[in-house]
């Protein structure tokens, strides 16, 4: 199993309630900002990927709402909020 497939399988064990809309966004025009690289390696759910053009994209499904990206990249780069009440990950063990 590739590293990413293994991670997806692991996230598949968690309970997620559907998100109304993405609660974290890369601010428009910031996709190539070097500060985003820390989220590519740092995001525990591996939700940030860098494409061949050097742009970082974020796929929000599987977000563990830890806030690592907010601390690592900063709020100039990310528009960061929590999901609405009752949405997102719901830990059964924690």
């Amino acid at each position, binding site marked *: 199993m590739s*590293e990413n497939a*293994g*991670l997806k399988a*692991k*996230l598949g*064990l*968690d309970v997620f*309630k559907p998100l109304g809309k993405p609660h974290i966004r890369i601010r428009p025009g910031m996709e190539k900002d070097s500060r985003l*690289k*820390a989220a*590519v*390696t*740092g*995001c*525990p*759910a*591996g939700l940030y990927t860098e494409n061949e053009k050097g742009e970082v994209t974020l796929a929000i499904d599987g977000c*563990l*709402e*830890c*806030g*690592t990206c*907010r*601390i*690592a990249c*900063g*709020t100039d780069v990310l528009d960061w*909020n*929590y*999901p*609405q*009440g*009752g949405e997102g*990950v*719901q*830990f*059964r*063990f*924690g």
Partner: protein
Amino acid sequence: MERFEVIIIGAGLAGLAAAYTLAGEGIEVVVLERGEFPGAKNVSGGRLYLNPVRPLFPSLWEDAPFERKIVHEGITLLAKEGSVALEYSGEELRRPPGHSFSVLRSRFDRWLAERAEERGAAILPNTLVEKPLVEQGRVIGVRAGGEDLAADVVISCDGALSLTAEKAGLRTPGFPRDYAVGVKEVIALDPGKIADRFHVSEGEGSARLYLGDVTKGMFGGGFLYTNRDSISIGLVIRIEDIGGEAARSVPALLDAFKERPEICSLVRGGTTAEYSAHLIPEAALRGMGKLYGDGIIIAGDAAGLALNLGLTVRGMEYALASGYYAAQAFLRAKEKRDFSAPSLEVYRSLLDDSFVLKDFRNFAATPDVLDNPRYFEHYPELAAAVFRDLYKVPAGSKDTLFSTVRRHVDLKEIWSILKDLKKASAI
């Protein structure tokens, strides 16, 4: 506008401790929790040390849903190839009422929320606080779920990021140097296997800390706690160090840790039940923001109340205690009918006189002393190299003990060790 005496943001340990205490005094208190139920967003390593908080909640602990009483404390220095482990067991860890207990927060916090509800606290799950309501510099309530709610005091217990404290102007977004990320798997494992592998009896458990190759030299470490029928295993890495030269992703580091022979034999046959991640404030005293303002008190992780002391990483006792003292501060302010910052300053002095800020002052130098890459790479490698050669029987004749050690610990090394010891004397 609906009105409460106290609005608490976040049903974690700080928020629930405050709610439990206030409701016990007949205060009209509501806890707003963004998760589906109290505990749904909460994660820790984790283990709770009971001694400091036992007296604050005297009748609470008997039926607490602890996982296991920790009776073995282990530390393992992981080199790239090999490791050196040390384990401490003490009768005092075993003796009632117990020293520390492993917990799973989703279960534990739900239970604590029920205790607060029994005393009359209202807990509203599925409720995200959008922002504090601020009027002329004073917090008068919150907006949550599109509705405005008023309170004499808002107690902000919304975790390590505390967007509420930011929006109230009491702090600025944090720095990568001041936070770590913890990632964890809960691995379901038969209690019989746990007993055999960790040499514990029913209800007893083990805690282990791993330093060195687990973080590839980055500031942090690995941890393992036994629960009733599962094992919590994970690692903690300072965010500033992520994506450095090593540039292995955080999930890949956790997988590599689990594949270490020291670990995989412990979790063999188990099945991962949950994967979680959480921020940890690690700046200690230096990073502590304002603890209160007009109409607002901040407690728990939201106030930066966590300490990484190397051998022990603590936050939950500080959360419980700060929630308790936030409640006490409200009660004193209520007597005066004054909820301004000068009146709520009593929160700071209560914390100052308690183990919470005493610990923070005692260990003020610890983050800087621990911020030494030698602890996370050099010493684990050195320890393993010395033991490797001490145990080794080569093809030819074996060196004497002394010259074997001296091969690794030369005068330059001794000098470096002395320098590190001198720095460590500050902690």
